């Protein structure tokens, strides 16, 4: 039995490492060790998943034990005939609150009752999780303060049994405290911050009347086949706007919204209204997100809230929501923040986050971190999320995952503290998004968890080369990580540059990739030269840094040349030049370089080697005029030798490669002026081969 001290646990792990994980001994020992590695947090745990039932009657609740108790007990007390066919699911949206323990205890007393805590965010759309958690063909979602008319649930079960392929949403008439019919549907009218006002269709006056279609309704009671559930936008938080939005999505999925006259329900409206302040920012935000998703004109939303709150008060709410929607983090379905201050994270990303408390694992906090990531990925899978971002640490780190990663990462991450501890001992680590590029024998692995950097890396790391399987052993590991307000570029874990914006890291990134590729060249030999292809033959512009090669190359590209490189001509043993299509780094008169892709100059990128047609060694002298003279090929070869990063004494074979390169070339030396004029002269010199 280990103690809590490091030597004991370390020793125990060492022993466990020698035991097959599938053995009973491992299972028994790891359970003991788990209890030492993981500190219990006291929060009630979810009930185990029960057997599949036909219908799950599900509700979300927040600090509302009494109402939930009576709602649940009334279902079981007054509808015993459906007890075997139904499960009751209660999602506690405040599991650290005063009602949690009592709600959890009901699992021991109420047949088919299941308790699920969820506190990563609060709001009405946690109802979405009810569908995800349900183990049944149909799900009836209700408020936790609702009573049904006698026999209504039995009729619902019977009705739903005729709807096995339904895509419809089923609702029922609301009855008032005096038992009279109070509403059958919502009319699409804006009122007090909501889209929809109760209306009455007399076809529901008779509980035995047939179902009829309605436009929309309040969300106190609704049922849907689990497989037909269209889901809520996962970005919603707080008091939401499901009315109308959900009904629209049902119809867009070829379903109907039906009122079942027998499904009469009584809702407890609080006298004097809700006890919490109405959060208009949430409502405006959620409406704009909903309208954005459904591609609806949001003018009616703006008009209503400007009318309700006043234009001055409404404006910042709309601006904040629109800023979020247009912002770089909106591409994530959900943003999770592990520990730390949620407000700080929210300020950073300009959007609400889902708060995740990492399990406490004092012996090694990394175990808790892995468990937190695991639970987040499980949630992402369960909720059908496509892209998620995890924020954690101080300074803040970002790790992004895509749906394609979820299952793979979950399969890689162990699921118990002991297994995670063993995995970490063997070098296991959480990985960021990445891709591999193989460039001329150099395997480059690129990783980042930062959305902004990810887009930039994909765009500018040798963009025309195919992305490779990341399992290749990299010669070079490039990482971009957010550290506080800065993004840091590191190569093989050595920080080489930092900047406030990912785009500003590109010049340094391009140079480190260049260096790695050039150092690993085997058959090819590099010459420091801008290179374009004209009429199937390569034009080389050898020159040192700051000689203006890139500007001249860009100008030639704009005039129809094919791009090979603005920096290196790669020459093979036959003397042909190969494209090295890194992004051009231009200055345009500024001290800082910025990346430009050949496509932005409307130029194609070369994809096959070309013979050398011309070598122009030009000195940039803006104050003078264009003047060049032909030089012999042998002198052109010396020019290549002066501009190669390879040392001739170490690689004598470069003479042969360069000799074959110059053998078909016309060589010049001289001076040039601005890129536009120089391009004119070059085209005069070589003709217009294209």
């Amino acid at each position: 039995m280990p103690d809590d001290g490091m030597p004991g646990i370390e020793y125990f792990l060492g022993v466990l490492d020698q035991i097959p994980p599938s053995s009973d001994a491992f299972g028994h020992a790891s359970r003991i060790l788990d209890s030492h590695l993981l500190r219990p947090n006291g929060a009630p745990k979810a009930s185990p998943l029960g057997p599949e039932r036909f219908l799950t009657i599900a509700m979300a609740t927040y600090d509302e034990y009494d109402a939930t108790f009576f709602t649940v007990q009334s279902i079981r007390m007054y509808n015993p005939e459906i007890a075997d066919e139904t499960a009751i699911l209660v999602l506690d949206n405040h599991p650290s609150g005063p009602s949690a323990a009592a709600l959890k205890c009901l699992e021991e007393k109420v047949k088919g009752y299941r308790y699920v805590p969820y506190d990563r965010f609060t709001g009405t759309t946690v109802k979405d999780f009810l569908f995800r958690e349900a183990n049944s063909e149909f799900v009836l979602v209700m408020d936790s303060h609702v009573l049904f008319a006698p026999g209504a649930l039995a009729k619902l079960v019977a009705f739903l049994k005729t709807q096995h392929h339904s895509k419809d949403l089923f609702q029922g008439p609301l009855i008032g405290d005096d038992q009279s019919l109070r509403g059958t549907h919502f009319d699409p009218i804006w009122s007090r911050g909501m889209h929809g006002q109760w209306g009455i269709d007399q076809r529901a006056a008779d509980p035995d009347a047939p179902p009829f279609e309605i436009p929309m309704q309040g969300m106190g009671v609704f049922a849907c086949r689990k497989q037909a559930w269209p889901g809520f936008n996962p970005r919603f938080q707080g008091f939401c706007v499901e009315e109308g939005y959900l009904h629209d999505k049902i119809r867009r999925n070829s379903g109907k919204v039906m009122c079942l006259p027998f499904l009469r329900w009584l809702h407890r409206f609080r006298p004097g209204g809700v006890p919490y302040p109405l959060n208009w920012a949430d409502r405006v935000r959620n409406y704009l997100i909903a309208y954005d998703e459904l591609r609806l004109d949001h003018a009616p939303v703006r008009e209503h809230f400007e009318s309700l709150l006043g234009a001055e008060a409404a404006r910042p709410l709309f601006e904040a929501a629109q800023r979020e929607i247009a912002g770089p983090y909106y591409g994530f379905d959900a943003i999770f923040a592990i520990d730390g201050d949620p407000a700080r994270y929210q300020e950073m990303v300009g959007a609400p986050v889902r708060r995740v408390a990492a399990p406490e694992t004092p012996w090694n906090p990394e175990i808790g971190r892995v468990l937190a990531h695991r639970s987040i990925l499980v949630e992402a899978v369960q909720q059908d999320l496509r892209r998620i971002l995890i924020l954690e640490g101080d300074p803040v780190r970002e790790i992004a995952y895509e749906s394609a990663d979820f299952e793979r990462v979950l399969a890689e991450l162990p699921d118990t503290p002991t297994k995670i501890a063993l995995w970490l001992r063997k070098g296991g680590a959480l990985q960021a998004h990445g891709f591999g590029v193989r460039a001329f024998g150099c395997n480059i692995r690129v990783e980042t968890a930062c959305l902004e950097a990810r887009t930039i890396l994909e765009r500018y790391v040798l963009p025309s080369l195919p992305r490779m399987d990341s399992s290749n052993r990299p010669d070079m590991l490039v990482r971009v990580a957010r550290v506080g307000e800065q993004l840091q570029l590191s190569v093989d874990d050595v920080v080489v540059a930092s900047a406030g914006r990912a785009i500003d890291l590109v010049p340094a990134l391009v140079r480190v990739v260049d260096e790695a590729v050039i150092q690993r060249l085997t058959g090819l030999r590099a010459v420091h030269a801008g290179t374009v292809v004209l009429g199937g033959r390569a034009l080389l512009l050898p020159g040192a840094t700051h000689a203006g090669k890139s500007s001249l190359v860009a100008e030639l590209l704009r005039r129809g040349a094919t791009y090979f490189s603005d920096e290196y001509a790669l020459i093979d043993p036959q003397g042909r030049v190969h494209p090295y299509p890194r992004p051009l780094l231009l200055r345009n008169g500024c001290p800082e370089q910025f990346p430009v892709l050949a496509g932005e100059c409307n130029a194609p990128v070369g994809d096959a080697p070309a013979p050398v047609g011309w070598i122009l060694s030009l000195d940039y002298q803006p104050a003078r005029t264009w003047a060049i003279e032909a030089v012999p090929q042998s002198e052109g070869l010396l020019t290549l030798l002066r501009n190669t990063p390879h040392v001739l004494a170490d690689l004598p074979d470069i003479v042969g490669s360069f000799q074959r390169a110059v053998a078909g070339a016309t060589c010049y030396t001289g001076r040039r002026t601005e890129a536009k004029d120089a391009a004119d002269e070059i085209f005069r010199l070589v003709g217009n081969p294209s």
Partner: protein
Amino acid sequence: MQVERTSTNDLLVDKLPDGSKLIVDPKNETVFALNATAGAAWDACSGPTTLSKVAEDMQRSLDPSVTEELALQSILQLQEKKLVTTSGVPSGATRRQVFATLSAIALPVVVSLTMAEQRAHAQSAGSGGGATTSGGGATTAAATTPA
């Protein structure tokens, strides 16, 4: 005037399609680029010879209008790069003489690059930008990037 190559062994000589020549001297760690005129003179010195013989050979291999003056200038260029040695050079003969009579034939040119110079170029030839700053306010933190 007597002319003789400095070294007959170890030199790697290649002729390029435009008639120019590349000579690699591993012993002295130097690469030479000779234009066609200088290359023709070099060929003419395959064995100990005289200026007039060099001129005759150049007339045959390069151009009938090659003069003894042009041959002399070519030899002087080769001598300056220590590719040939001479004796009995006419007094006052220097590389600075101008050949007003020449027309189509290029002046002899011999350019050299030592291995040490080439190494220095190679070490300074990188992808640029230096290790102090990169674009847009980015600050490089380590001198791992080539200058």
